[in-house]
């Protein structure tokens, strides 16, 4: 099944949640609203003809430009994009599922954006979501163990945010 | 300095070690150190047995008591240790109780010791060393049912009744086997429970 037919397959039950899709891209993708993510994920996994049993990866991409001039040229407003790479070992088809979250919850720079976890659908998501939380600063709701995973627990900031600046010091260690 | 009594010297040495470490067991407040001192004390007693040429008894002392203390130590560590070094402090009341009990036992033993007329004065080494034959062989034969020491009994009918320590030996063996089986049974996994519930039970 290619991305287009998957999109068609999804559009019946989830039409209001499907935002966009690019079936001509190098890796065809479908973008969904973040509210619908867990349901769509479960549907993708459980439907016999879809059967996406393998979650490869969750990628968080921070679309943001710290430079004011360049920021004006950006096509889309600043946001964080989450990309879920899925495939099915039985049907041998692939899909990139995307969803968008704001960079901060309610535009408050101290609050992380939230999105529902898919770790109940694929256990693999458990660690990937922790990694996205750690590096990109997205909080996953209903996650069993939302902690930092690669950085130390007391690390400040999320390194893969475009406006991240390395702390000058960490426990007495000079970093610059 | 011509005739230094080596036997007496070693006797004193082992006796002092045994007593000193026995005291140390009482005074120490760390359970593992206690066990360690106890082992030294029991080892010194084994040394006394060797000195008295009772090698069998000495080896038994080492194997049973020292080995037993080792097991005690293991259980002490496993079952009572909270934190890396478990400590047990004795209160004043316990000291008094222990002193009364220990003193009574000591008095009794002293009385018994002095009542044996042969022990009133030390014998010469030659006399002490004159133990004919090997004691362990006789003991072993006794365990297997042959009383070597009673062979002079002239009456054959009476001799037949004295079948050595075979029965006692058997009873002890069976007893030990039962204890072993019981221990294995106790240590065995018994009930099946839901893991989560078991885990919750463990948490106070």
């Amino acid at each position, binding site marked *: 099944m290619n991305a287009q037919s998957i999109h068609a397959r999804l559009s019946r039950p989830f039409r209001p949640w499907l935002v966009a899709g690019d079936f001509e891209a*190098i*890796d065809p993708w479908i973008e969904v609203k973040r509210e619908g993510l867990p349901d769509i994920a479960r549907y993708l996994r459980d439907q016999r003809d879809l059967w996406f049993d393998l979650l490869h*990866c969750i990628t968080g991409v921070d679309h943001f430009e710290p430079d004011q001039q360049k920021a004006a040229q950006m096509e889309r407003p600043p946001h964080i994009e989450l*990309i879920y790479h899925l495939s099915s070992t039985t049907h041998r088809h692939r899909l990139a599922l995307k969803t968008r979250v704001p960079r901060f919850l309610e535009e408050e720079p101290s609050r992380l954006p939230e999105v529902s976890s898919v770790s109940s659908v694929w256990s693999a998501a458990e660690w990937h979501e922790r990694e996205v939380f750690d590096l990109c600063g997205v909080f996953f709701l209903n996650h069993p163990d939302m902690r930092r995973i690669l950085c130390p627990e007391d690390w400040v900031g999320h390194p893969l945010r475009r406006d991240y600046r390395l702390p000058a010091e960490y426990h007495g260690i000079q970093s610059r | 300095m011509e005739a230094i009594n080596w036997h007496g010297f070693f006797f004193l040495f082992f006796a002092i070690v045994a007593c000193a470490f026995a005291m140390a067991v009482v005074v120490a407040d760390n359970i593992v150190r206690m066990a360690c001192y106890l082992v030294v004390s029991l080892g010194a007693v084994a040394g006394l047995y060797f000195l008295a040429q009772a090698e069998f008894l000495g080896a038994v002392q080492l194997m049973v008591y020292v080995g037993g203390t080792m097991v005690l130590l293991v259980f002490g560590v496993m079952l009572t240790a909270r934190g890396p070094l478990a400590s047990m402090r004795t209160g004043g009341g316990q000291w008094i109780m222990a002193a009364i009990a220990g003193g009574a036992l000591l008095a009794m033993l002293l009385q018994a010791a002095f009542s044996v007329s042969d022990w009133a004065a030390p014998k010469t080494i030659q006399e002490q060393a004159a133990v004919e034959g090997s004691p362990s062989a006789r003991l072993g034969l006794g365990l297997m049912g042959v009383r070597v020491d009673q062979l002079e009994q002239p009456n054959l009918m009476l001799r037949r009744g004295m079948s050595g320590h075979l029965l006692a030996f058997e009873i002890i063996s069976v007893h030990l086997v039962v204890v072993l089986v019981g221990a294995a049974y106790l240590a065995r996994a018994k009930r099946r429970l839901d893991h989560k519930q078991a885990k919750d039970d463990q948490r106070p």
Partner: protein
Amino acid sequence: MFSERVQPENVEFDVHTDEMLINMGPQHPSTHGVLRLVLRTDGEIVTEVTPHIGYLHRCVEKIGENLTPRQFLPYTDRLDYLAGMNMNLGWALTVEKLLGLKVSEKTRHLRVIVAELSRIASHLVAACCYGLDLGSFTPFMWAFRERELILNLFEDLCGTRLTYSYITVGGVTDDLPAGWLQKCATFLDQFEPVIDEFHAVLTSNAVFIRRTAGIGVLSPTMALDYGCTGPVLRGSGVDWDLRRDGEPFCTEMYEDYTYQVIAETDGKYPQDHPYPPVPPAARLGDCWHRFYVRMLEVVQSAFLVRQAMEKYAQAGGKVDEPFPLKKKLPKGEAYLETEAPKGQMGFMIISDGSPVPYRVRVRSSSFCNLSVTSELCRGVLVADVPAIVGSLDLVLGEIDR
């Protein structure tokens, strides 16, 4: 001889000892680097294992956002440092996917040669370090003896023994030196009979079987659920290998090669060599099967190298047409997973049209394989923890990135 153990999570032991929290690692002989496992133990029984990672974290993805693809290539060597060639290959193919670049036939076969040799080296380390985890030191030395020969070949090829940066975007850095194929053939000739020694001392060893069979059973569904890939997944009986089942960009490389994907299907392994039989105590998905899959894949890889050498000798075209160091990348994003020795190694590159990628993502196979540890280690004995962790074949450079 030993009856099948009852699942310990369902057993309530009458004799309780104090619960103890133990740090296994980050400095521990059997965690293969700086993995830290916190064990909650009740005597010898482990009730819970929590992996803590990140001791080698250097945020390679951030580094990738500041370097052009070819500059980033040496960093990929440091991911799975036991199979640097496969890491290079994964990154090179990903960038080529973004560029829509096709490499010459000669390059393709050359890549197969080095990738499969690298797989042999990695599997040898994995399989025999596993012996070390179980307390058997000798096969480890034997494996390193063979691996040394592969490293010598690589040294002739690119001058380094560990971090090769050999396969680059658009080709490889240099063609094979003269006489290399002959050396490689000599290596394979002496290596293939040696594999049986490993089978003798590990695979069919009674103690080894007792230590691994039925331990850490990973069901196929659980393996997929946790995103386990590579030999870990195939050890659970899932017939899935990206060299055959992956994206075209990955499978094209292995077109018209014959090889078998090693996975137990219908209760038996593909058989073209007298391997030791599967012991009756082994259950599909246990440590023994994961180990066995690796040992069999080594044979397949050697077979692939032989084919590739033949094809390379006949193929035409240049091998070194590297992508310019600072050329602008086309706008777009590409994600590609390749079958690395440890599992599926994924790279993602997102470009906004500048020479430097906007975002680089590294999907590590060991990372997902490790995430299943706490599930597998519930209720096992302390000695089983190294046995299970070792069977997953982890490389911390790849996990921590």
